[in-house]
């Protein structure tokens, strides 16, 4: 237990230390960011080896994403402030994954988004991202306040998730506030618009990291379901319907979108909304599918946003999917990476998402035969949108406006190859990702007559 504490402490505090150092000593930001993220990854890996819990696995995943971001980050974006912001977000996100305390979770929830609320840091150009993040924080804070009011005496155990498990603290109002927090943070309909605004108006790679934290799904899995088993059983399908509605709405919305960043954000949002549907499905397939999909969506989305940013740096920031730009002639490897990540996001066979989609479709169709049909429909539309973006950006006549532009640089190529290998090898050997313990854990606990909390909690082992 002590070793776990030390390792998790290292995992989230080292990025903070480096962020602080970069604030004053503004040299070699990439090296500092890489070192901090690598340390975090190492500590998380040891934590996985030590505890083999899903929270540790998620910490490792997010650490790896940040490490990759440090390598892919173009020179233009690699300012000390930006790297410090990324490390700041990394530290708080890892803490959110790790913590068992609602107050700490609230702090991590708010502070992981802080750089995106400050206009001069990672702030977007429109008001909606800030509003979405603030409203989600406000909802979570209010829910915790209500829990505290409902408790007879306030102590450390009042906010311990272990102590509150199964007690439905605060009843329906707290449940509703927690669901509102998820809705705002995750971009569930009708609070979805800020995601695309953030992606378009903010810095691409840090925003992708923020969105790929999936703290909304984390709150569902870690807090709502274990704390409110009765309410979850009765009212939780509403969130699932909203998630599936979001997946379809956003998929339709993306069909006419021409701004690449916005389009990517919409597709990523649609695909990640499926995670909630899977978590709610109350089936072993759906739960496992949701968790694997979580991994696939984060890796693929990060890769896609990274490549898009690399293209913007090379070919101008006003790239549009309105016409064919023919960039594959200049950057064939980036084109291939984009195609693989894009198709991996929407269930290409041979990639990990094929398995996750397969499980998600089975899980959601089993629990909701009619609304579950929306999932493959949304995925089909997302696939069309991603292919349209790929074809408009990379195919078409070679543009004479570009001279000798570099394809992927070695550091970019290696890290993107690692990402592609992860989704492909993960697709060829999905059991290595799904994990016998995870699959079995879900399976053992799967009993449709029981409360969803038992199954989910045992599976997730938070």
């Amino acid at each position, binding site marked *: 237990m002590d070793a776990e504490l030390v390792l998790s402490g290292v995992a989230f505090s080292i990025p903070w230390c480096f962020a602080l150092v970069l604030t004053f000593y503004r040299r070699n930001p990439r090296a500092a960011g890489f070192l901090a993220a690598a340390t975090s990854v190492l500590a998380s890996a040891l934590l996985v080896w030590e505890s083999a819990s899903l929270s540790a696995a998620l910490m490792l995943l997010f650490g790896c994403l940040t490490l990759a971001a440090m390598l892919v980050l173009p020179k233009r974006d690699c300012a000390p402030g930006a790297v410090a912001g990324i490390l700041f977000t990394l530290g708080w996100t890892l803490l959110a994954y790790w913590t068992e305390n609602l107050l700490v979770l609230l702090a991590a929830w708010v502070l992981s988004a802080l750089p995106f609320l400050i206009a001069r840091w990672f702030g977007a150009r429109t008001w909606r991202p800030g509003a979405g993040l603030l409203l989600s924080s406000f909802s979570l804070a209010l829910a915790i306040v209500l829990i505290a009011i409902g408790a007879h005496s306030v102590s450390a155990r009042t906010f311990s998730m272990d102590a509150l498990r199964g007690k439905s603290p605060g009843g329906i109002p707290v449940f509703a506030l927690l669901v509102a927090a998820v809705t705002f943070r995750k971009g569930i309909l009708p609070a979805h618009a800020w995601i*695309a605004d953030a992606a378009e108006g903010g810095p691409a790679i840090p925003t992708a990291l923020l969105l790929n934290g999936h703290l909304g799904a984390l709150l569902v899995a870690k807090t709502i379901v274990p704390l409110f088993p009765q309410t979850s059983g009765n009212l939780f399908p509403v969130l699932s319907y909203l998630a599936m509605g979001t997946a379809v709405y956003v998929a339709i919305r993306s069909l006419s*979108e021409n701004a690449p960043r916005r389009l990517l954000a919409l597709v990523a949002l649609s695909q990640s909304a499926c995670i909630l549907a899977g978590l709610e499905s109350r089936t072993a*397939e759906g739960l*496992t599918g949701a968790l694997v999909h979580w991994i696939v969506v984060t890796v693929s989305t990060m890769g896609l946003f990274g490549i898009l940013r690399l293209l913007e740096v090379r070919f101008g920031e006003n790239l549009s999917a309105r*016409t064919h730009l023919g960039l594959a002639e200049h950057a064939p490897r980036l084109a291939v990476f984009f195609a693989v990540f894009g198709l991996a996001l929407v269930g290409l066979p041979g990639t990990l998402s094929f398995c996750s989609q397969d*499980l998600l479709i089975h899980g959601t169709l089993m629990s909701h035969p009619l609304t579950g049909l929306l999932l493959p429909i949304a995925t*089909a539309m997302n696939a069309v949108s991603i292919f349209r973006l790929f*074809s408009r950006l990379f195919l078409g*006549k070679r543009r004479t406006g570009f001279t000798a532009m570099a394809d992927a640089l070695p550091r970019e190529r290696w890290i993107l190859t690692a990402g592609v290998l992860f989704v492909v090898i993960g697709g060829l050997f*999905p059991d290595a990702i799904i994990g016998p313990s995870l699959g079995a854990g879900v399976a053992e606990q799967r009993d449709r007559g029981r409360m969803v909390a038992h199954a989910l909690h045992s599976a997730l082992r938070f």
Partner: protein
Amino acid sequence: MSFLQGALVFVVSAPGAVFGVLSFLWLLGWVPAERTVSRITGLTFSACAAALGALIWRLAATGAPSVAVTFGNWFTVGDYHFPLVLLADRLSLPFLAMTVVLSGLIGQFSATYLHREDGFLRFFLLLHLFAFGSLLVFAAGSFDLLVGGWEMVGITSVLLIAFFQRRTAPVENGLRVFAVYRACDIGLLVGVFAMHRWAGTASFAGGFPMLPGGQALVVCLLLLLAASGKAAQVPFSGWLPRAMEGPTPSSAIFYGAISIHAGAYLLLRVQPLLAQSWTASALVILIGAATAIYGTIVGRASADAKTLLAFGSLTQVGVIFIEIGLGLRAIAVAHILGHAAVRTLQFLRAPSMLHDYHQMHSAIGGELSPTGKHIENLFPEQVQAWLYRWALDRGHLDTILDRGVIEPLMRLSRVFARLDSLGLAEPVAQRRRATPKTPAELGASR
């Protein structure tokens, strides 16, 4: 693993392995010479053909009806598992042989046809991936695995339609075909789910899972949707002429031989279920008949050789659907094999045939006289004129799809975009950055 099993695994996996190795090396910076690529392709498919020949010979010698290779489950979650089973039986072996032989031939043909073409390596990589996907479809012992191969065939098909990527039309047509494929594949995904739900398995290696009448009908209809999409049956036929934008060898192997018949294979595979439901069988016959009539009428008004051949394919596949609906399984398989061989030859011969035809015209100092004996002459002139207009617009199928599905969807998408813009100073769609024009836009305007 016995010799038979080893041979089956080799046949299916060899093209996939070649694709994986070549593409990985390319990603790391290696660009192989044309000769290297064509030799590797030739060797791969020759080895596959030899292994498959040995497999067929041993099966015939021992009198065994099939050979199956079980690798266990790809992944298992709770009661659900994804079985990794390869199966070579009397239905799949002819399709496997067709795929290996024709892919090898197309590889050899393309080495010359695409000599010094920009996308030479890309074509061969996609050919290997396509062969792998097709072999997976035909050798899959479960519908789960079949879905994997099916999707691979779809994506390679689309990427080859957009092969000449500098032109806008092939790229846009590729996107259209992709959309139709994905829409129809929903039927396959949900159909496989339904089999899991009702029959408890989607594996047919140990005997086909049977379902009661109503459930059999639902599964058949869902799979029929997928089969119709892949085989370009009515009302999804509009994508086939668009697919002719790809290089001729890929048109030959996809739309003359293998991909176009994958739908028929799927129906042949679910024949036991089809036989249970006369409604589903009748629908298969109806779709097949409608497609055959559509194909022959529209084909007659086609102005270019490849499109004409594509509609010829469509007509034949329509007839094959009728045969399957009638339960004439052996005839359908023989028809598929014969048709695939002839049509591939026709596609490959099309460019030089036109050249020969022009030479013949020059030699005789004029044009060859038309025969004037066409079946449409039997119709009254007004009907002929109407049919001609109908055929020129390819049965209005694309128009119906545009107006009935795509335009409403795009209108809805734009309504959503306006809704999303509420509360912003200017609509999202009109918002542009304040930076000057990019090189991309400057290049586009030149």
